[in-house]
């Protein structure tokens, strides 16, 4: 050991220590975000929640498309099995497990890239790549709604692959220990969406034009890249025929023609909100700097040769986003990341010359700089963690004990639908949500831990109607599909008897009314209220008038059963109640008693929240009045 240490010059140890410090800072920057997710254990967005739910169904032996419906290729559903298994292993809520798995992938991705930079430091311009690494680490810390989306997962192995390809193109042969796993996992994640292959193609084209190294095209990593997609195609074709039939005859046609209902116009996609325009402005900024650098000697340098591939993937990602015709933030994610890392790389490129001079003047400067970076990052991470821990006085947190987990989750992480599900059902009760989109059914249903009561985790009748609007010639075809899916949904409700059915008021109810859906399939259900513009139907056996029994009456009847004065059947017969309703009241009364008798305060958030809403309404009306009075005053002044 001593001889090893002595064999290396001091400079080597200084630079290595500096590198380790910078890497540690990077990882710290990335992983401080874990504290955020532990403070929001149930926060998840609609798409990710539905994939998690599908993964649960897969683990229960269900087959995609045949046993549960979706538009997307199945890989994402199978990949989500990993966080579900982590959740079960460590008894975590699935959303938290997803976040932790994603953070782990993120950390691995950073480590792999850092290893590549270190091992091939003689052929890769390390200095500009350090800000790149930081920008990459920082990017995921900004993720909330898009955490774990397919585009997000794609970046974790595409960026190391990108780096590896550059190393190969610019004349170095990377080790197979890097090439094979990076190539394979990149290929796996490219298979999530076909357009990701276009981005890999853009990267390749950019490198080719920069390096003119055609021999680099065929390499271990490019061959490894193909393994996963080929395997995926083979496994995909092995899905049961019924599953493929649903996918090709229903899901894909609806998706192809029906997504227009959520389409946005072009300016909206680019400029509407900050989270759209900021990446585009970053793209414009990075391209501006790139085209100022390219014609200079810096642009023709070894480090400058990386600019073209970066530009290519930025532009490719822009095209992929625009082609989607949807203003969905996750679709912009790759372009946003590429633009940010390009900006960081350019900053590193510009600063690398003076920095190198400084390092050459004094060898210890690199260690000092690394210490400063580490110190700054640690301070930032500390501030972030403190912020995650702060509970504002007006914030209500939900106790997760009722869901079988420990800890709390901020109320803002939930839609109102979640609370209605918790209030009106038990953990094993199935629920069906029939809306125009995935939200609010999911994530509420996943967060509440209620299993789905139909093969349709979300419903798509609005997409079918949009498809017909766009293509009136296909009216008959989509009429058949619509009839089929409505019948399937109804069949599932009759067969599975979900405790709750949520039916969105507009436009879904109107569309389903043409099929007499409520009369045909919700005969055993009674409407109990509304939430998030959706009517809630509870399974009552027959139509039942809840209003006829006030709370005290219900308590009397439930207590009679709890005191064993009557059996449930006797009470149902005596008071002419559906047995399901009675059982539900008895369950809730028992749960309420137990909760009340334990040493806790009641949850009054809903009442207090309603009070706040009412006060806000009053304030709004008073402001309107104030505005009118101001106008009258202005007119009076004018007249004078």
């Amino acid at each position, binding site marked *: 050991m001593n001889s090893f240490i002595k064999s290396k010059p001091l400079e080597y140890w200084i630079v290595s220590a500096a590198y380790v410090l910078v890497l540690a800072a990077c990882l710290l920057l990335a992983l401080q975000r874990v504290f955020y997710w532990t403070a929001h254990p149930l926060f998840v967005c609609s798409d990710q929640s539905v994939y998690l739910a599908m993964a649960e169904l897969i683990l229960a032996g269900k087959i995609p498309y045949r046993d549960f419906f979706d538009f997307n290729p199945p890989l994402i559903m199978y990949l989500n099995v990993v966080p579900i298994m982590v959740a079960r292993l460590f008894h975590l809520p699935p959303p938290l497990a997803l976040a932790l798995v994603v953070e782990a992938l993120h950390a691995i991705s950073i480590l792999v890239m850092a290893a590549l930079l270190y091992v091939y430091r003689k052929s890769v311009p390390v200095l500009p790549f350090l800000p790149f690494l930081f920008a990459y680490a920082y990017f995921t810390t900004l993720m909330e709604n898009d955490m774990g989306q397919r585009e997000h997962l794609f970046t974790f192995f595409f960026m190391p692959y990108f780096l590896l390809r550059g190393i190969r193109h610019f004349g170095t042969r990377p080790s197979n220990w890097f090439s094979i796993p990076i190539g394979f996992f990149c290929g796996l994640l490219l298979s999530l969406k076909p357009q990701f292959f276009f981005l890999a193609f853009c990267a390749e084209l950019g490198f080719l034009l920069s390096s003119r190294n055609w021999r680099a095209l065929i390499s271990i990593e490019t061959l490894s890249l193909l393994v996963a997609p080929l395997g995926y195609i083979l496994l995909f074709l092995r899905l049961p025929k019924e599953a493929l039939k649903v996918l090709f005859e229903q899901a894909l046609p609806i998706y192809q023609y029906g997504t227009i209902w959520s389409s946005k*116009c072009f300016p909206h996609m680019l400029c509407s909100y900050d989270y759209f325009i900021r990446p585009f402005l970053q793209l414009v900024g990075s391209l501006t700097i790139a085209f100022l650098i390219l014609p200079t000697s810096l642009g023709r340098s070894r480090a400058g040769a990386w600019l073209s591939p970066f530009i290519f993937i930025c532009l490719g990602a*822009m095209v992929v986003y625009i082609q989607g015709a949807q203003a969905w933030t996750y679709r912009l994610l790759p372009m946003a990341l590429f633009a940010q890392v390009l900006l960081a790389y350019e900053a590193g490129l510009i600063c690398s010359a003076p920095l190198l001079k400084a390092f050459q003047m004094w060898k210890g400067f690199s260690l000092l700089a690394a210490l400063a970076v580490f110190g700054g990052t640690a301070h930032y991470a500390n501030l972030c963690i403190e912020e995650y821990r702060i509970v504002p006085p007006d914030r209500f947190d939900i106790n997760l004990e009722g869901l079988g987990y420990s800890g709390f989750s901020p109320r803002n992480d939930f839609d109102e639908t979640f609370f209605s599900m918790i209030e009106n059902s038990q953990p094993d009760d199935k629920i069906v949500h029939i809306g125009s989109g995935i939200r609010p059914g999911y994530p509420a249903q996943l967060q509440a831990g209620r299993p789905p009561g139909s093969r349709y985790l979300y419903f798509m009748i609005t997409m079918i109607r949009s498809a017909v609007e766009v293509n009136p010639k296909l009216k008959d075809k989509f009429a058949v599909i619509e009839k089929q899916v409505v019948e399937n949904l109804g069949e599932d409700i009759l067969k599975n008897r979900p405790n709750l059915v949520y039916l969105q008021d507009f436009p879904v109810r109107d569309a389903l009314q043409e099929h007499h859906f409520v009369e045909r399939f919700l005969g055993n259900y009674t409407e109990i209220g509304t939430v998030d513009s959706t009517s809630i139907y509870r399974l009552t056996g027959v139509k039942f008038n809840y209003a006829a029994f006030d709370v005290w009456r219900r308590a009397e009847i439930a207590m009679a059963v709890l005191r064993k004065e009557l059996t449930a059947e006797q009470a149902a017969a005596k008071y002419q109640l559906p047995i399901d309703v009675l059982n539900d009241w008895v369950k809730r009364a028992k749960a309420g008693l137990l909760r009340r008798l334990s040493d806790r305060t009641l949850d009054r958030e809903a009442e207090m929240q309603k009070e706040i809403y009412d006060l806000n309404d009053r304030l709004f009306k008073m402001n309107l009045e104030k505005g009118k009075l101001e*106008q009258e005053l202005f007119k009076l002044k004018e007249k004078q």
Partner: protein
Amino acid sequence: MEDRSKTNSPIAKLDLCMVGLILPFLLFLLHDLSTRSGDLPSLLTLHLSLSQTLLFGQSLYVDYFDFAPPLVFELGKIPYLLQQLLGGLFPLRVELYTKYGVFFLLLSSFLTTYYLFRSACRQLASRLAFPLPSEERETLQKALAQIDTSSTSYLLVLAIFTIYERLQFGDVQFLLALTLTPWLVYVWLTGLGLGFNRYLSIALGLAAGIASLLDYPFPVIMLLCTLAALRLNALALSRFAFSSGFLSMVLTLFGALLHYFSLSEEVRHAFEHWVVPLKMLSYQMFDDGINGWDGAPDHKEVFYLACPALMFAAAAALRSSWIASLAMALVGGMLIFLLEKQGFARDLVLAVWANLALLFIFFSSSLSWTLDLIKSRMPSSFGPLIFDLSIRLTLTFSLFFFLNKRFEDAYSEGINPHPLRVIKGLSDINIMVEHNSKWKEAVYILSDYPDPAYPLLFNLERPPGGYLLNGRPARILLALKKTNELKGDMREFYEHVIAQTLQDLDRKKATLILAHGYYLYQFLEEAGLLNSVDENYERIGDTAFLTDNKEPREYLGAYYALTVFKSRAAVK
């Protein structure tokens, strides 16, 4: 001594291109401009209308509002002044004077670019005949090769671009593109150490200086394009800094500044405290109404084409700073689109020009490379030439005819709209205005964007009937009011708008008032102006800006009708 073989080829191609393609195109265009009417773009006609009022003693921004900087309106006066001066000899409408003026600028752009390339070929060949340091020799050889492969394409781009953007002929971005065409070549070649005719350089610098002041992002774009063309190289920068063109540009900017300070205090106050802050706010505020798939015009193809164009530029910019400057212009064009947050075709004119330039140069370079490959295999020297010519001519003429047809269809639709979607029971705004107002009677069309009003009011010679020629401030002021941010300068402006509008309503200045869409109606209501409208005007119905949301009739938000009010005196 010149190496004639090195100069003859590109110069011959340039001469052939100018005589064989550009000249016939210019003649065709001149004929088209002369025989067609009502085809000027919306903003240009708005600026012309406003400029006319300034000639009659009105104050800019005080009596009428628009976002454009003052210089735009000074230029807008020129057609009217020419008409006054030459009207006796050439009794033409202002529209024609405008078109001929822009045509003159287009012709100048062609001729200047042609001259620059021609002169550069001679100079480069002359220098290369002498011993030079290897780096300099390589740079000059690359430049000559670049001119050889790309100069004719670059000239053709201007022609194709003119047809592509025929409906934006004379718009500020169009004028910027006309200026950048020779300017970027000039900067690039001057940076390499070449010199050009002093008077031409001065004229070019003057044009560049004026063009860079026509809109707010233009100075930044001009600066970045110029820096890119000079490769941020100290020697190139110093050569350019001492060129006649640069000095002329600086003097022009200085002159513009002096002109600005010569404007009245009132106008300067309005510009600095109202117009500029409002424009900056407009850059930050997005119209929530621009939502659904048909809520704005669709020009995705410009961004799609920008992808291969910029990719090519990224590969070529290493060898040519001229290409880098074109890429910078494209990025600048995209930036304007992002800032304007609307999606109109006029917001993408610069991007279209830069796209075409890069793609044509890319095509030309690829063709040259293929040609070299063929030449090495074919004994005949005519074969490759025929191949080259046939490909270029086929592409050029195909594009030309396709784009011209596209323009013809769009022009017809603009004059006599027959969109697929109609608002039942409503006639088009053209008919409503024509039937309910007379020549020279003021009409006030309040809209968040000027397209329903202009060029209609310009073509029908209806002077503006109200303060907000561009109704965008109404939406901005409403938003500020809602968030209690209507203070200071914006409060002052708001009160000025109301005062001016009340005055115009009480005087019944406009025979006809049309209020378009949700924002303007709400603005009138909240400002208490609807009472004055009710007192002096009678609602006579609704009309529609019939369109499929394509050029030249583009709209934002929903397909709203316009509420029409006619002066009670006129109704009687």
